[in-house]
């Protein structure tokens, strides 16, 4: 037996304070609400007390953003670019610290925060920094920025979602009031420090921490010109209702129930890797996760056997161990939801399978799980689980694959696995999903737009299209 000895990344690179304030007008200030704690989901230990912003605090943040908008939007694009490039470089310099902090607060494996999240965060700032002085050539004419953007982001990719929101907003000349998720505020607060380090003019970025009410106050504030939200479809609906009838621009990036479609002529070993990456990446806390596997019946047995063998090698445990593949579930609440839906899967008659795997006694954990004999009508095939749970279905023909893949209220992403190029194009034409990955999955790049169809939301983030959401076009 070749057992890997523990290889923990050092926590010494991070300095978590006992309490954090709100970041308004370039300063950390007290919040007026009752502070809440953020915990390490792998150990349930308290990490820090976090200020809670009331609607008065949010109002102060919006005012500061409004004031800063006057300065920021008048800067030449090349000047805004300098700040964004500086921020991008500071993120790279502090990448290790930010990765460790992200893993501690979120529960995701350090391999992922180090190799995926942080490089993408920096890449996003670099990419949009490049646009700041070239907006005239983006195809939107001489479009002006919108003003103050109110942004509410989720806990699954705390810093990356911040980058997706803040980088294009700032590049276009807007200012920002951002609310990070209640369970993962630490990297956003570290980002506030980076804004100070970069000498970003006060008020250009404001960060207000808190629970749902804080987010609601950001969204509802009358002086906010643009609302951007990433999170659940349920909350997205509430936000759409709040914004309806105002002149606020809105982009929503919501849930998903993506089909990962494996044809019989696929490169099986790589398809299996893609299935694993599609659903177990980030503990399945991914809105575009490939949570429905559609396998052509003629290769069902071989794919399932390979998949089970591969899933058995996944290493679940300490997020800071460099060899961990699957970390902790982000919160007790999310764990309860995953359990509830998985139990429903069993109760409705699907066959549940998990590899033998020891889970730590403390913290929030869920073993990687496959459901076979799943029908389209099962809840686990229709509802977003947002956890490491894969529902396996089968199909016989390409047309049936398309029909089943599209038969969902969501439409964020899809994956197609085949060695036949023409089939990839045929499928991509018919799949109603914002992103269609071919022979890969969960691949992100700042140059590529991302967004959904149907209940997965509207608007696009990333790439040239991502500018549209922050310009008055």
């Amino acid at each position, binding site marked *: *037996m*070749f*057992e*890997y*000895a*523990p*290889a923990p990344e050092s926590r010494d690179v991070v300095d978590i304070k006992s309490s954090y304030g709100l970041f308004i007008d370039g300063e950390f200030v007290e919040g007026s609400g009752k502070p809440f704690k953020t915990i390490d989901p792998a150990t349930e230990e308290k990490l820090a007390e976090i200020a809670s912003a009331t609607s008065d605090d949010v109002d102060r943040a919006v005012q500061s953003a409004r004031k800063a908008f006057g300065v920021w939007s008048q800067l030449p694009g090349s000047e805004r670019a300098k700040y964004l490039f500086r921020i991008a470089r500071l993120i790279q310099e502090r990448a290790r610290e930010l990765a460790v902090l992200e893993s501690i607060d979120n529960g995701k494996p350090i*391999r992922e925060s180090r*190799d995926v999240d942080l490089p993408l965060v920096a890449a996003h700032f670099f990419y949009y920094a490049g646009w700041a002085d070239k907006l005239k050539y983006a195809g939107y004419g001489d479009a002006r920025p919108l003003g103050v953007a109110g942004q509410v982001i989720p806990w699954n990719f705390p810093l990356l979602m911040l980058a997706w929101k803040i980088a294009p907003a700032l590049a276009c000349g807007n200012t920002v009031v951002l609310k990070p998720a209640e369970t993962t505020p630490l990297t956003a607060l570290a980002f506030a420090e980076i804004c100070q380090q970069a000498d970003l003019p006060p008020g250009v970025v404001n960060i207000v921490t808190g629970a749902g009410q804080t987010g609601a106050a950001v969204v509802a504030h009358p002086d906010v010109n643009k609302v951007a939200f990433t999170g659940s479809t349920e909350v997205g609906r509430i936000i759409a209702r709040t914004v309806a009838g105002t002149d606020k621009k809105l982009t929503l990036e919501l849930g998903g129930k993506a089909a990962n479609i494996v044809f019989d*002529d*696929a*490169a*099986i*070993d*790589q*398809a299996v*890797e*893609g299935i694993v990456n599609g659903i177990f990446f980030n503990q399945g806390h991914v809105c575009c996760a490939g949570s429905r596997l559609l396998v052509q019946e003629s290769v069902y047995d071989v794919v399932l056997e390979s998949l089970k063998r591969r899933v058995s*090698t996944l290493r679940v445990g300490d997020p800071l161990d*460099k*060899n961990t593949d699957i970390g902790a579930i982000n919160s007790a609440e999310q764990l309860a939801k995953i359990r509830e839906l998985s139990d429903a899967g069993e109760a409705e008659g699907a066959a549940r399978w998990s590899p033998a795997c020891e889970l730590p006694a403390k913290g929030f954990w869920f073993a990687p799980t496959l459901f076979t004999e799943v029908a389209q009508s099962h809840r686990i095939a229709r509802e977003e689980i947002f956890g490491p749970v894969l529902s396996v279905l089968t199909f016989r023909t390409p047309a049936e694959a398309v029909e089943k893949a599209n038969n969902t209220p969501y439409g964020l992403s899809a994956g197609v696995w085949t*060695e036949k190029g023409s089939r990839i194009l045929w499928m991509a034409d018919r799949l109603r999903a914002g992103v269609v990955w071919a*022979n*890969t999955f969960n691949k992100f790049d700042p140059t590529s737009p991302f967004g959904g169809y149907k209940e997965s939301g509207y608007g696009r983030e990333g790439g040239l299209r991502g500018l549209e959401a922050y310009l008055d076009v």
Partner: protein
Amino acid sequence: MVSTVTTSLADVASSNAALRAFLHGLPGVDRVGADQRAAMLGTRSIKTTAKAQAIDLAISMVDLTTLEGADTPGKVRAMSTKAMHPGEGAPRVAAVCVYPDLVHVAVETLKGSGVKVASVSTAFPSGRSSLEVKVSDTALAVAAGADEIDMVIDRGAFLSGDYLKVYEEIVAVKAACGDAHLKVILETGELATYDNVRRASWLAMIAGGDFIKTSTGKVQPAATLPVTLIMLEAVRDFRATTGTQIGVKPAGGIRTTKDAIKMLVLVNETVGDDWLSPDWFRLGASTLLNDLLMQRQKLTTGRYAGPDYFTLD
């Protein structure tokens, strides 16, 4: 079950068309995906006790190699001595690998040590000669006492689609091996595509190779992680199909302990324990051994000794 499958695999080689149909019917390999998987496994962090275990395992898997035009009996004797006693407390290596005309020197030096003698053959490294020459090259090495034969396939025939010629040569060389184990060198650097690596792996296994080996060490790229990964997948699938276990030997370009440990991680997470022994996995290398010894000493003593403290053989 197993016997019927084996029979059907024998039919596979009944004609070039049948062989082609079978090899081209294997699932493809997506280059991007395979590279990513190998790169991800390359990030595994093997420390402390795991590193100590891996280093000793790697030493025991080394095929200590010298394949130079300038090789002499003295050089082979020195290397063979090192193979038996690489360093204090370190295990002996798996085998030494030399040209056929020097096999007798290695055999004499290694007598009773348990270290095997491997010999390259079949007009190594290009394989550009007649079957008669290749078979007699092999017979020469076997007669001199080689325990293992590392043959090269005819890449020209493979790339031109004459799979049957490649197959028949392996079968003929295998027959000439007698009791000696046959390692089949695919020279993956010349096969160019990963699909070809998978096909050549199956071809070598169907033809009776006991091991499949990446490279001669004379062509770049040699033993890359993705190529080794694909070959490990091939032996895994071959065993699942036929019940027969085949060994894997990456060779060429594995110079550091880090390289070797990455290979072991690949084995561990692709085919598992069954292949984690010198009987089923080898590392073909010349300079790797000293780096393994150096890292081994660093782990034991906490200090690096300079290169002068490790013998050059």
